[in-house]
């Protein structure tokens, strides 16, 4: 952090000003002039919170994607299919047993098993052939998409939010002040906040596992130099399988999350594949903190864009990607 400030004082200043401005916009009571210019504060706050919670969902999808890429150099273009598969499994389980949590657990296990099968049956055979692996994942995504269309049809599914998470709660964020001097607080759906907290917890656990455990050390060493790690006697195939299982399982969990606060339908797989692509391009390939940063940026850009410039919202996301590629092609937080 300090090194970044030392090396790029101008960028650090710009980032600082942007964060300060955002904090002021979130915390302060807006003067009437500002409300006239860009609309109600409640709309803005909702967009920001939606952006951050959407970012947490993107993080769940993209962290698995970036982990798999970082270690195995495998651009898993079937990642969106794993997401959708997890969502459908979660829907089936939670509709059958009525338990939301159980849906998460089974979706994680089921999709992780698919990931293990893919790694052992398919990708192990073509190790080191990046392009061929990518082609295979494209073929797999087509096959999976059609199989899921076969099994679940083209309908929209939404996973039932459990009763203890239904409904909004009041946040200590003032949206407006009434003429009587009474402050109006923001009300926001509880389930989204819970999911945000869960994503943060998962992110921290992953960071700790990668940076503080022996297995994490092996994974990091594998990211840096796969061959040398194998030469030191580490059972690298086992590490590969474990990482693929974890990455796929995270996509499965993300599917349940996405099915809860959005919906599941054919085509969502491509949407989330695109989201994870953009997130890891912006954040930096193979970097978990990069995925987190990219996910928040893209989530915010998407939500704020769809509120303030509805017909050009996707262009904002795209421009961010272009800007990052132009200034820092390896991504914001990638080491190189």
């Amino acid at each position, binding site marked *: 952090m300090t090194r970044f400030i030392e090396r790029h004082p101008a960028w650090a200043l710009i980032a600082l000003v942007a964060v300060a401005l955002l904090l002021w916009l979130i915390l302060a009571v807006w003067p009437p002039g500002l409300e006239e210019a860009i609309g109600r504060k409640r709309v803005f706050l909702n967009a920001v919170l939606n952006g951050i919670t959407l970012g947490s969902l993107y993080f769940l999808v993209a962290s698995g994607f970036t982990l798999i890429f970082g270690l195995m150099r495998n651009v898993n273009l079937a990642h969106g299919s794993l997401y959708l598969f997890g969502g459908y499994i979660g829907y089936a389980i939670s509709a059958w047993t009525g338990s939301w949590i159980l849906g998460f657990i089974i979706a994680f296990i089921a999709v992780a098993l698919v990931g293990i099968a893919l790694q052992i049956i398919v990708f192990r055979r073509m190790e080191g052939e*990046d392009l061929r692996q990518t082609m295979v994942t494209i073929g797999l995504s087509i096959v999976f998409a059609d199989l899921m269309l076969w099994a679940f049809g083209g309908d929209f599914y939404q996973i039932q939010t459990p009763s203890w998470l239904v409904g909004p709660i009041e946040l200590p964020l003032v949206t407006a002040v009434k003429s009587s001097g009474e402050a109006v607080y923001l009300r926001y759906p509880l389930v989204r906040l819970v999911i945000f907290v869960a994503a943060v917890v998962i992110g921290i656990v992953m960071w700790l596992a990668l940076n503080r455990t022996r297995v994490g050390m092996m994974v990091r060493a594998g990211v840096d130099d796969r061959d040398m790690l194998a030469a030191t006697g580490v059972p690298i195939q086992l590490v590969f399988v474990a990482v693929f299982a974890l990455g796929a399982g995270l996509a499965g969990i993300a599917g349940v999350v996405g099915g809860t606060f959005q919906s599941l339908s054919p085509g969502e797989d491509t949407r989330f594949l695109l989201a994870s692509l953009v997130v890891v391009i912006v954040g930096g390939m193979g970097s978990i903190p990069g995925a987190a940063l990219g996910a928040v940026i893209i989530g915010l850009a998407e939500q704020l864009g769809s509120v303030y410039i509805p017909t050009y919202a996707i262009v904002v996301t795209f421009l961010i990607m272009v800007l990052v590629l132009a200034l820092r092609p390896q991504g914001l937080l990638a080491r190189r």
Partner: protein
Amino acid sequence: MSLVQSAPETTQPAAAPRATLLAWPEFNKPAVWLVAVILLIMPFIASGFFLIEIFATTLILGTIALSLMFLAGYGGMVSLMQLTIAGFAAYMVAVFGMSANTNISLGWPWWLATPMALVLATIFGTLGGTLAVRTEGIYTIMITLAIGAAFYYFTNQNWAIFGGHTGINTIATPKFWGVDWRADVPYYYVTLGVAAFCYFAVQYVSRAPFGLALQGVRDNPRRMAALGFNVNAHRVAAYAFASFIAALGGVLQVWNYRQISPGSVSVGACIDILIIAVVGGITRPIGPYIGAFIFVILRTFALDLLVKLGLDGNRFRLLIGLGFLAIVFWSSDGVIGLWERWRRRATTPDKRAVGGHGHG
């Protein structure tokens, strides 16, 4: 058949003007002449449905896939945005030309709207390529896929220029010299002409100094840079050339369907182009056309075939996906590679055939 028989005679190099023609190895093979003749007399053999739905569609998809083949085969850059460039050209034809959406279309005549669309699409593709060459290898797929997907979602959202998710309908097609060029037979010849032009252009460029330098860049960018070649400039120029070919395909496509909507530029369609190129083989320009033919035949007849076999007719994409997986698993060079391996095995039965490895 007489033409086929006479073809080997032309292999004898004789007059000087003929020598330039014979510098193209294609003209020395009888099979090539046979295919050319069949394609030329196709309107007298095939009915309107076959002519347009099978052969013209094959030529269009093949041309778009050819642009991908050029980038992937000679430049080592697998770009998934070739269909997006074609779709962009198609949208531009609709926007500048005449259509039923009078609030969008500017109503230019076709001879003005079409070059405009080609130029804009080439610029669009070149800009996308400039972005994509900032990274290498496997990243190219991701960035071009992101560009393609972003364009798809953008056309869906934007009503002012792209007509939202309904797109633009009843686009006017060229009529001049007393010919309706969208009528089956003239249209077939237009597609055939454009496809042949693109095919030979790619063949020519692949042997021109630029194409050779590009192949050098594919094989060893660092050495080429050390030799004084501007690696990125060659890559961007390759994107520009490929974009122009894809744009030609896009213009033909919009004349064929007379409408354009986001569905035509969806991510699935982008991936179809990759499938076509890979199934056909990305080492030679003929590959994409073979791939496109297989793809179109499957797409058109898979439903009937599946129903006849007592299966669900809607599982066409499953078939395509499995076929693609099989090709990627067993041959690194698509159908051409399979055929060549089979032929090599047939000619030298004692030696074990060696398939090519890794094509990027």
